[in-house]
């Protein structure tokens, strides 16, 4: 930890190089569960952004007061509270979406992404860095969710954002919006990302 990454670095890191889903494999439950439509994916990402940002900022603010044996308790308390906020907001303002997401919003509490960022970043760094990190990570999370959701929604229903984009003759691949489709799509995309980054790394090494 000799030279701490700056806020901008943290922000950039989260989006692609340290993408929480594809590279760190954090928060897989929502990645699979809420990606049968782009709308749900984006709502979920927004909820994660809210919770992660608030939790990161608060943890960063009180990081000097944290006692080791109470650290996890405080993290959990903070996260659970903000998740409850997010849950109620969604229920109040986008009721249909909150019904679709169902238990996966409260499951953000045990999403390893949040506790991992609090532990790794926020509890060691300043507010600005922690906030930037939260936004970067959430954007990365959003990007990953949307990539999966786009594939699934397009193939599964011929629509994007519930708007028909493929011709009517397109036979809907119903499986894509069902659990097997989630696993298969994510697995294949993950393989693709690995393949691409391997190739990039090889090319960089070759030079």
């Amino acid at each position, binding site marked *: 930890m000799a030279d701490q990454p700056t806020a901008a670095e943290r922000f950039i890191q989260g989006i692609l190089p340290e993408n929480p889903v594809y590279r760190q494999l954090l928060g897989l439950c929502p990645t699979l569960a809420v990606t049968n439509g782009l709308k749900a994916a984006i709502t979920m990402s927004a909820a994660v952004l809210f919770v992660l940002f608030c939790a990161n900022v608060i943890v960063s603010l009180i990081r000097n007061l944290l006692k080791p044996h109470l650290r996890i308790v405080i993290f959990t308390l903070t996260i659970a509270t903000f998740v409850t906020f997010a849950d109620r907001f969604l229920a109040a303002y986008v009721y249909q979406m909150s019904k679709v997401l169902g238990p996966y919003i409260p499951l953000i509490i045990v999403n390893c992404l949040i506790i991992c960022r609090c532990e790794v970043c926020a509890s060691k760094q300043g507010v600005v860095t922690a906030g930037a990190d939260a936004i970067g990570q959430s954007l990365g999370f959003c990007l990953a969710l949307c990539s999966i959701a786009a594939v699934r929604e397009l193939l599964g229903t011929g629509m994007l954002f519930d708007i028909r984009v493929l011709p009517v003759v397109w*036979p809907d*691949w*119903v*499986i894509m919006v069902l659990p*097997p489709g989630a696993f298969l799509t994510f697995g294949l995309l993950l393989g693709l990302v690995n393949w691409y980054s391997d190739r990039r790394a090889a090319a960089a090494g070759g030079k």
Partner: protein
Amino acid sequence: MAKEIQIRESAEAPVIHVAPSPHLSHTAQTTRTMMRDVLIALAPVTGMALYVFQAYALRQLAICVIGCLAAEWIFTGMRGRRATLWDFSAAVTGVILALSLPGTAPWYIGVIASFTAIGIGKVIFGGLGMNIFNPAMVGRAFVMIAFAGAMGAAGYQDASSAVDAISQATPMDAFKQGGAIAPLSALFWGNTNGSLGETSAIACLIGGLYLCIRRTASWEIPAGVIGAVVVLGGIANLLNPESQWTVLHHILGGALLFGAFFIATDPVTSPLTPKGKLIFGTGVGALIMLLRIFSGYPEGVMFAVLIMNSITPLINRWTIPRPLGGK
């Protein structure tokens, strides 16, 4: 002690230009001849399908075989490997896949099923011999759920067909949805509707017995499947004596015999030891009956095979044979 010396020899000695023992090999059977055997065994079933469904069967077979070969070529090419089309394994997958699809299924179903079967079912695990799941069943399950409408009951009905059989629902489906009973003779000879390969019990039996006699398929698996179906079907009959759908209907109807002889016996995805094979077969049979009687799908062969495939590593683990003199 004799072994130790040989080991040190092979670990330390320089490699001499000679081959390890044994120096004789049983040349009668190779992987390729095994696959060829499967194709031969499929001939009666294919013939029956061509006789009953005519152009439908021909079209579906062509789509799936070409699809599987193309998929094998493309995917192994993507891995930078030499495509092994001539070991016939992709062709076998294609034929089994085609025979497990309804003849009237649209063309894209065959193509998607073939690519899924070879891509996700086989090449991604490392190719022939490495796959955990039966490729043909992976492909079929994928399209079955993706295009339930075109694969389910609706897939079989086509009143414009010249062949009478095609305009009915399958016997299993007709029974499950409406309680209609098909005559046993029709199930036996195969002039009913259904997936291309499953209708004729006699054709499946002939091909299956050929495979078992050639030891290309192990008899333990079909024996286990049919045994479990007889026992469970018998119990179901006893509990519900009014049911017209008897044990014989269960055995002759649907994809049971086709699955028992051609799908479940896929050596790659079934256990290695005879005991394991028997457990595997019994498990497949039991699951088929569970799914047939209780689940919403009229047929359970595909799911039963996939589920038992997934347990195969565990079965292998549990049935490590006791070595001679071992505990």
